[in-house]
């Protein structure tokens, strides 16, 4: 069976383009057979077995910037859409599959050089194919006193994750914010370096973000305005110690004081890592009796049951990084902020001093908050697991917002039914400063009807969230247009600005058309 073609491109033209790609990268790095190109399918596609699944036409894997420049020029000549991936691990958000069928995947995995790691000034400069595991290994082998901040799992690309504005767990947890300087290939093949990188022979490209004049880095995140080929990252100097303390409160309504205290300790820098506010009834230790009474019981009944078990209604773990005596004082201060909540309990977690030796490391159940990449997250759960996608709205960091979001989203589930296999409860995280992000797990299965149902519920959640002023921070390719259309202030003014930029930077519309709802002019009417 012939593979799909890029929209509007004839087969002879496509063959010519593939030949020209091959003359740039070598024919062994152009993939057009089913066996090879199927490897770029989204392993977690919510359209598995359906015609709507977005399938690439081919893939091309350059190994240097000059090749990327030539590839985009060839793609521009034939108007072939390119879908750029770094290591292709954007699972839950589309993986390595394109947004439109017939795209050519621009696979940057071979561009995997660690260009510089500076221990004195605590930064690294890397190419897109460098994974968290790669940089961690490099730092360990060189015995550098530096930490990375991996997401969970850690097999993704630093550049890919940061450009999608992903998050981790340590004080460098906002990955886009932790970047400093980038190099970008534009659709016309031009190469731009941002920030101080625009100064030839710059000495501070990875130390001072802003350079001079307009600061454009943000426009290359979650976008299709250019292909990022290098990026600098600030790294955490290895701390002396790590400690985690747990705060738990007994009543449902204590959420207000708990979150107020949390906002204070986060926003004043006392706590600098990612925290999550957990509802014990949904996320506490396994308890069949609790699972039974959780549904349909009153809040008072749940509070009494949890109190009998010595458990709080809400808990939050506070992570501390730094010199041991400083984090001890920070924990004492944090406890003072929460002390006025009647019945509040505090529990000290383990303290770790660095560097860890092998036997200490082996005892740590979850090493990711310690800057150690892992794949352990895949081991959680039963033997059946076909994938998932994430619904991830941003809500204010207030108790009112937590209660309202819980009520609103649970009503959607009541009205439409839970997605099959979805986890109960609202997991609330502080990956990013000043706001909470909810990360809802949506299972994906190789079952057409179940996936259709999940998509319907997802779309309803998107609309309901927008009605309440909660926008998503990131999403699967399946829902990019839905979410983009929610950001409609002043007659879609922001998206109209995106389109103006897109038309100027990519008039042939070849770079990831439709990514996050930004369509090139030639495809806009049919899709936007």
């Amino acid at each position: 069976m012939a593979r799909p073609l890029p929209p509007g491109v004839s087969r002879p033209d496509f063959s010519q383009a593939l030949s020209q790609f091959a003359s740039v990268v070598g024919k062994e790095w152009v993939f057009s057979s089913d066996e090879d190109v199927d490897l770029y399918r989204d392993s977690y596609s919510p359209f598995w077995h359906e015609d709507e699944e977005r399938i690439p036409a081919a893939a091309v894997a350059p190994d240097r910037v000059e090749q990327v420049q030539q590839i985009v020029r060839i793609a521009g000549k034939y108007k072939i859409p390119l879908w750029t991936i770094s290591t292709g691990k954007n699972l839950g958000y589309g993986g390595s599959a394109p947004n439109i069928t017939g795209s050519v995947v621009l696979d940057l995995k071979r561009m995997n050089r660690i260009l510089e790691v500076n221990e004195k000034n605590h930064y690294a400069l890397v190419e897109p194919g460098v994974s968290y595991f790669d940089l961690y290994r490099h730092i360990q082998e060189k015995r550098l006193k530096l930490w990375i901040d991996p997401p969970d799992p850690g097999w993704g690309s630093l550049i890919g994750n940061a450009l999608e504005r992903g998050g981790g767990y340590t004080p460098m947890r906002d990955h886009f914010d932790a970047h400093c300087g980038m190099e970008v290939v534009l659709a016309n093949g031009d190469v731009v370096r941002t920030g101080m990188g625009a100064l030839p022979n710059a000495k501070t490209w990875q130390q001072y973000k802003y350079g001079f004049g307009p600061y454009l880095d943000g426009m290359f995140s979650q976008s299709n305005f250019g292909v990022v080929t290098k990026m600098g990252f600030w790294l955490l100097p290895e701390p002396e110690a790590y400690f985690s303390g747990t705060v738990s409160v007994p009543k449902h309504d204590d959420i207000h004081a708990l979150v107020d205290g949390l906002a204070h300790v986060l926003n004043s820098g006392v706590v600098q890592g990612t925290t999550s506010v957990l509802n014990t009834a949904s996320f506490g230790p396994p308890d069949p009796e609790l699972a039974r009474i959780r549904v349909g019981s009153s809040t008072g009944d749940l509070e009494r049951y949890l109190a009998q078990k010595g458990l709080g209604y809400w808990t939050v773990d506070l992570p501390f990084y730094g010199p041991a005596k400083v984090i001890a004082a920070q924990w004492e201060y944090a406890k003072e902020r929460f002390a006025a909540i009647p019945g509040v309990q505090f529990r000290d977690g383990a303290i770790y001093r660095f560097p860890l030796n092998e036997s200490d490391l082996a005892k740590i159940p979850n090493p990711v908050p310690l800057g150690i990449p892992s794949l352990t997250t895949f081991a959680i759960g039963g033997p059946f697991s076909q994938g998932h996608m994430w619904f991830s709205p941003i809500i204010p960091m207030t108790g009112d917002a937590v209660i309202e979001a819980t009520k609103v989203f649970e009503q959607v589930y009541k009205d439409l039914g839970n997605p099959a296999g979805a986890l109960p409860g609202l997991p609330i995280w502080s990956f990013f400063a000043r706001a909470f992000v909810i990360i809802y797990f949506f299972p994906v299965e190789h079952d057409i009807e179940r996936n259709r149902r999940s998509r319907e519920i997802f779309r309803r959640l998107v609309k309901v969230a927008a009605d309440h002023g909660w926008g998503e921070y990131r999403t699967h390719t399946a829902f990019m247009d839905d979410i983009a259309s929610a950001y409609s202030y002043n007659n879609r003014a922001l998206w109209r600005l995106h389109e103006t930029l897109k038309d100027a930077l990519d008039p042939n519309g070849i770079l990831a058309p439709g990514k996050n709802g930004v369509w090139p002019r030639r495809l806009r009417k049919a899709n936007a």
Partner: protein
Amino acid sequence: MTSRREFLQAGLTGAAFLAVPAISTSIDSHRRFYKAIFDQRFPEGVAFARDMRRRGVPTHAINGDVTALWYQDLHFAWANAPIEVVGMTTASALFCLETLARDARHRVTSRHTLDGGLVSWTIGPRKLTYG
């Protein structure tokens, strides 16, 4: 086919080999596997490993998590030369290894889902096709 629950109720030693032949007999005796990976949380996995060791294949136990196996072993093994690996694990563990293998120009060359959800599989070098 014996379900996993029946397997567990029947006890480990005697019944263990009921599940194994479906995988082991399909493996040619002359194939050289770099390693056999097994999830030691499951009796079927343990029995599979015992059978592999009897065939002279080095084994590696996991508890569902492939991080150390890949980071300390397969990452280098796959980079050094094309190799074949055989295993009996959960689908999630296989998914991880399959994804990582892909980056190292290897692929899943056989897969068989057992009752209870474990998967027996082999991973080997990708046949490269040009053009």
